[in-house]
C-alpha cells in the first residue's frame, strides 16, 4: 500500500511484474469507479502512484494506492451472490473467461449462468453446483470450492452483494480470489462489531457510513458555490427540493438526509449539518424542511429551535415543519434568532427562500 510516491533505484533489479496500481477510495458505484494503471517496472509504479495520490473522485481524496502483481491465470472465473428482491432469495451468477462480469460487457458467445435460490448457504452452494455443471472440468471444481468458502461469508456478514472478479484459476489447478466486492447492509451492522471496528480503524474510507451511524446524518456538498443550504429529511424529498430550487434558478449547496430519530435535544446531528452549510462561501438562505413520519414533529421542533439558538449566524433561515400546527411551532421558536422565518407549507417556504435569495444576491 503506497501512501506517498515511492523513490525508485534505476540500478536495482525490478521484481517480476507486471503490476496493477489501484487507487484506494470508497466505492463510488460501478460507473464512476476509476480504473487501475498497469505498470511494467518500479519506475512505472512510481509514476502511477503519482497519478493517483491526491486526486479526487466524487469528493473523495485518494490517500493511498495499492500495488498488486497482475495474475497470469489460465482461466478467470466470475462468481456473484446478491439479494434478489423479485424472486425473494439469493441470485447466483457464474461465468468464466469473460462471461458474467457485470462491470464489463459480457461476451455474447460465452456461457453465463444465473438462477435464484433460497436464502441459506446450503441452497446457494447447491445452486452453484447445479449451474457449474455446464462449465469445463478445469474451472468447475475451483468455482465450487470458492463458493463453499464464500457463501457462509455472504450470510455471516449479511451482505447485499458479494462478487468475485476474477477468480484466478492457474494451470496447476490452484486458484486465488483476485478481487472482492462486498456490499454490506448498514442496517445489519449492529450485529457485527468486527465490521464496526474495521470502519473505526479505517475511518477515512468509511466516513459516510460513520456519519450516518453516529449522527444520523447523510450529507454531501453538491455545488460548493451553491446559494441555498438544505437541512431536510428523506432522500427523495431532498432530491425533489433540490430540483424545485433549480427550477427557480436557485442553486442548492448540499444534499442532506437527517434521520429524525437522531433529532433530539442535545444531539449533534443538526449542529454538524448547520455548521457545514454556513461554511459555504455563497450561502444566501437555509431551507429547513422536516417531516416527522415515525418521529414526533414536536420533539424535532424543540431540538431544532434549541440548536439554532446556539449557532451564531446572520444567514436567513426558513423553517417549515410538516404536519405541525403553526401556532405551536411559533411558540417553540419564540425567542429564537431573528433571522428565522416560519412557513406553514412547503410552497410558502420555497417562495420565501426565493425572495430572500433574490434580496441577498450580490448586485
Amino acid at each position: 500500500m503506497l501512501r506517498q510516491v515511492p523513490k525508485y533505484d534505476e540500478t536495482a533489479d525490478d521484481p517480476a511484474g507486471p503490476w496493477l496500481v489501484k487507487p484506494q477510495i470508497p466505492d463510488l458505484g460501478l460507473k464512476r469507479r476509476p480504473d487501475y494503471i498497469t505498470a511494467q517496472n518500479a519506475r512505472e509504479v512510481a509514476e502511477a502512484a503519482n497519478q493517483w495520490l491526491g486526486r479526487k473522485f466524487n469528493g473523495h481524496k485518494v490517500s493511498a494506492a495499492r500495488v498488486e502483481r497482475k495474475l497470469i491465470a489460465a482461466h478467470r472465473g466470475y462468481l456473484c451472490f446478491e439479494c434478489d428482491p423479485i424472486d425473494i432469495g439469493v441470485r447466483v451468477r457464474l461465468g468464466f473467461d469473460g462471461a458474467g462480469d457485470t462491470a464489463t460487457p459480457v461476451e455474447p458467445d460465452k456461457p453465463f449462468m444465473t438462477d435464484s435460490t433460497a436464502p441459506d448457504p446450503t441452497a446457494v452452494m447447491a445452486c452453484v453446483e447445479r449451474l457449474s455443471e455446464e462449465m469445463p472440468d478445469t474451472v468447475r471444481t475451483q468455482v465450487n470450492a470458492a463458493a463453499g468458502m464464500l457463501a457462509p461469508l455472504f450470510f455471516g456478514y449479511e451482505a447485499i452483494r458479494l462478487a468475485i472478479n476474477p477468480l484466478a484459476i492457474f494451470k496447476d489447478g490452484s486458484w486465488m480470489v483476485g478481487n472482492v466486492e462486498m456490499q454490506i447492509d448498514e442496517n445489519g451492522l449492529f450485529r457485527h462489531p468486527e465490521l464496526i471496528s474495521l470502519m473505526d480503524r479505517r475511518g477515512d474510507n468509511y466516513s459516510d457510513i460513520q456519519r450516518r451511524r453516529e449522527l444520523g446524518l447523510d450529507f454531501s456538498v453538491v455545488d460548493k458555490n451553491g446559494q441555498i443550504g438544505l437541512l431536510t429529511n428523506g432522500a427523495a424529498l431532498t432530491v425533489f427540493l433540490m430540483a424545485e430550487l433549480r427550477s427557480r434558478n436557485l442553486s442548492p449547496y448540499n444534499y442532506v438526509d437527517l434521520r429524525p430519530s437522531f433529532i433530539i435535544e442535545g444531539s449533534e446531528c443538526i449542529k454538524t449539518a448547520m455548521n457545514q452549510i454556513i461554511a459555504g462561501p455563497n450561502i444566501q438562505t437555509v431551507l429547513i424542511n422536516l417531516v416527522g413520519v415515525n418521529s414526533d414533529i414536536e420533539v424535532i421542533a424543540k431540538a431544532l429551535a434549541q440548536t439554532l439558538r446556539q449557532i451564531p449566524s446572520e444567514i436567513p433561515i426558513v423553517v417549515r415543519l410538516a404536519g405541525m400546527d403553526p401556532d405551536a411551532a411559533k411558540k417553540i421558536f419564540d425567542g429564537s434568532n431573528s433571522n428565522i422565518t416560519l412557513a406553514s407549507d412547503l410552497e410558502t417556504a420555497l417562495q420565501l427562500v426565493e425572495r430572500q435569495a433574490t434580496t441577498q444576491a450580490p448586485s
Partner: protein
Amino acid sequence: MNNLRLKPGTPVLVIGAPSGNALRHMRLMRDYGTNIIACVTFSEGGTGIDGIASFTNCADAISATGAKVAVTLASPDTTGHAVLEAAEAGVSLIISPTILVPIHDTLRVRRRVRDLGTVWIGPGGTGLAIPGNSINLGVTPNEILRPGNIGVIAMPSTLSLEVGFAMANHHLGQSMWIGVGVDLMKGARPSDFVPFFAQDEETTTVVLICGRGGTDEEEFAEAVGHFGFSKPVLALLAGENAAATNSSFSRFLESRQLSHFVKIRTALEQAGVAVYDGIDDLIGAIPTSLPQ
C-alpha cells in the same frame, strides 16, 4: 390481495407498542377510528395498554380477540420476528412501518410470509389506510387522509407525505393509501397492487409516488401494461429535470444510485402512465370531474 379492502371495524392487533413513538402512533391510529383490540408486547402482557388487552404472543392475542390484521411497531432488530410470529399465528395482512430493518431479516421473513399467503406491507413506508372505512394502519398522518377515489401507492415516505399534504389542501381524497417504502427488500411491491386497483370499484385513479432506487417502478409499469389498465394512472418522478441541467447534481445522484430517471420514465410512459416531476403538476392532473 383480496384481503386489502378491509371492512369498517376490522379487528387489529398491534405488536410492540409499549411506549414512546410506537405508543403515540397506536393512539393516533385509534383516534382515526381503527379498531385496535389487542397488543402484543412479548414481555409484559395481561395488564393492558389504554384499556386494550395485552398479550405476550400473537397466537394468544388472536385466539382471544379474533384479530385479523397486525401492525408491527417493533424495533428494527425485532421486526422480522414480530412479522413471522403474526403470520404464523394466522393474520392475513401485516403492516410494518419500522425503518432500518436488516435486509437479511426481511429476506428470510418475506419468503415464509409468501408461503403462508400473508400480505406484508413494509418494512418502512407509512402503511395502509382506508379513509372511507376509518382505518389507518401505520404512521400515515391522519390529517392527510380523507375519503375519495384515488388509490395511492407511496414509496418514499417523506415525499409521499408532501403529496398527501397537497392532496389535503386540494380536498382530494383516497380510496386507499398504501405506503410500501423504498427498501430494496420489501414485503409487497408496487406491482403487486396493480391487479387489485384494476378491479377495485372504489378507485377511479391511481397515483404512484416513485422512489428511483431499484426496479419497483419498472415492474409496476410492466404490470400496468399487462393488466390493460382502463383507469388513469399518474406517477410522480421527482428530480429528473434538475439532474438533466446540472452535471454536479447528476453525478451526485448517480453516486447515490438515484439516477434511473430515464429508464423509469420510459417504462412508465410506454405503459400509458402519465409522469410528472412536480407535486403541483401531479395534483393538477388528477381528474376532478369524478367525485372525490
